[in-house]
């Protein structure tokens, strides 16, 4: 039974591993994009300008309110249609392919960005107002205030939430398989359909996903520990 997972041309082991690498690549780029979007839109939501708050509200409401698959379809098929439409205006009639990896990262990144926005906004709100005031009283501003005082506190509160967003992001990448990007899901579907052994390959996919989440949990646990240094947890009191 394990012959089918041999590495090299006789087995599917190398293809499945490449699929796992692709999943990790696309989910980590999506998470990075998502956190960036999250910081930007959380700042918008916390700003004093109505228009910025409204834009951020529209973004999180729409993205969190519609199925992820729809976002991916919209960007993948709609995205290249839109680019081709623009190109047509300039007289170029051919097909323009938007790279499946880029589109997938943008789509899943936009989704995880909406969830990250809420996580980060909540975390910033949980930092006591006094921390900002004391920082300013001490004459701190810019990086020394936000980077040294506020960020570590926000990070401590946001990390468990971001860990959750990471797992959602990781699983959302399975949906990108519809664009033809060969990640774990698409690779196991190819292997299952080509060998008529769906059970073996979907089980392998489960194990790969669990391995990735397990390893990333170790990373998030240690990051949480790092940012909780100097903070006495309620359980300890």
């Amino acid at each position, binding site marked *: 039974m394990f012959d089918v997972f041999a590495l090299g041309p006789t087995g*599917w082991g190398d293809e499945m591993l490449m699929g796992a690498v692709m999943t990790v690549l696309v989910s980590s780029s999506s998470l990075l994009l998502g956190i960036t979007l999250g910081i930007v839109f959380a700042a918008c939501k916390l700003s004093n300008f109505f228009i910025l708050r409204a834009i951020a509200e529209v973004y999180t409401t729409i993205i969190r309110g519609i199925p992820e698959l729809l976002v991916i379809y919209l960007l993948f*098929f709609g995205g*290249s249609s839109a680019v081709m439409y623009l190109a047509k205006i*300039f007289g170029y009639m051919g097909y323009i392919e938007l790279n499946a990896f880029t589109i997938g990262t943008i789509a899943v990144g936009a989704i995880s960005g909406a969830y990250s926005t809420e996580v980060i906004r909540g975390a910033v709100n949980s930092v006591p107002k006094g921390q900002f005031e004391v920082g300013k009283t001490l004459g701190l501003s810019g990086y020394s205030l936000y980077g040294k005082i506020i960020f570590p506190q926000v990070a401590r509160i946001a990390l468990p939430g971001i860990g959750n967003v990471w797992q959602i992001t990781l699983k959302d990448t399975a949906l990108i398989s519809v664009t*033809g990007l060969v990640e774990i899901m698409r690779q196991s579907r190819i*292997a299952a*359909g080509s060998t008529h052994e769906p059970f073996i390959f979907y089980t392998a996919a489960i194990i790969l996903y669990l391995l990735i989440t397990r390893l990333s949990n170790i990373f998030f646990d240690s990051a949480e520990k790092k940012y909780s240094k100097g903070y006495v947890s309620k359980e300890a009191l």
Partner: protein
Amino acid sequence: MRNLKSIMVGLMISALSTVAFADGHWSTIKIGTEGAYEPWNFTDSDGNLVGAELDLARDLCARMNAECEFVQQDWDGIIPALVNGKYDVIMAGMSVTEERKKTISFSKAYMTEPARFFALNSSPLSTFSSAKNLNLDDDGDSTSGTISALNNAMKGMNVGVTVATIHEDFANKYLDSNLKVYPTQDEMNLDLAAGRIDAMLCDVGTAEAFMETAGGSDVVTFGPNVFGGLLGEGVGAGIRQGDADLKAMFDKAIADAAADGTISKISMQWFGKDLAP
């Protein structure tokens, strides 16, 4: 000034692309396939696309003097991606149906999995002999002759079909026997094995799966391969509705490949039987 520049660039690009098209619009044909539907099209463990449709596509492209380029696409997005222009043709074991024809057009079928009749090996029907094929698109004497031979052989017998299928339509239109309509193939299989019906009409694949089980070991097939007409056209190449020239090229290449036996040869190699139209 900026506007003028972009118009110039636009004109230049369109001039270039016109030249490219004039040099043979379809010198390269991109073929989209799923790569996960053995033996039609699938992926070997080294990641290469293989299968009956890959072999056929290469042969067709050679006939059309075109370069074949294969693009893998998940089944879920396979029609939208064709419409969008990601590739020009779908060859992915896709049956030609009226529903799909609303969105895309199809070449003529390059392979068909015909319907056939099945009976127990103890039945007199098991020795029934007839023409190899019954093509309902052909209204010649051989078609009507084969149908009346079938009706003679099955006179007064019970013939099973499953409900709301092309096979039920066929039986209603052409057969004189007593029809028994079943909700599922499985129930019909059991009744055939138990002798409650004398024959059944269904797709070859599903019946063969039953014949491989212990309960179906006494079942044999008889009569012609039935296809065409109201049984549908089989599996064809999906093509954008606007590309009538490409459809014409495929129709001709498929007709040639069917006529010189290439499709039969590929079919025998991958399916172990002849699915040529």
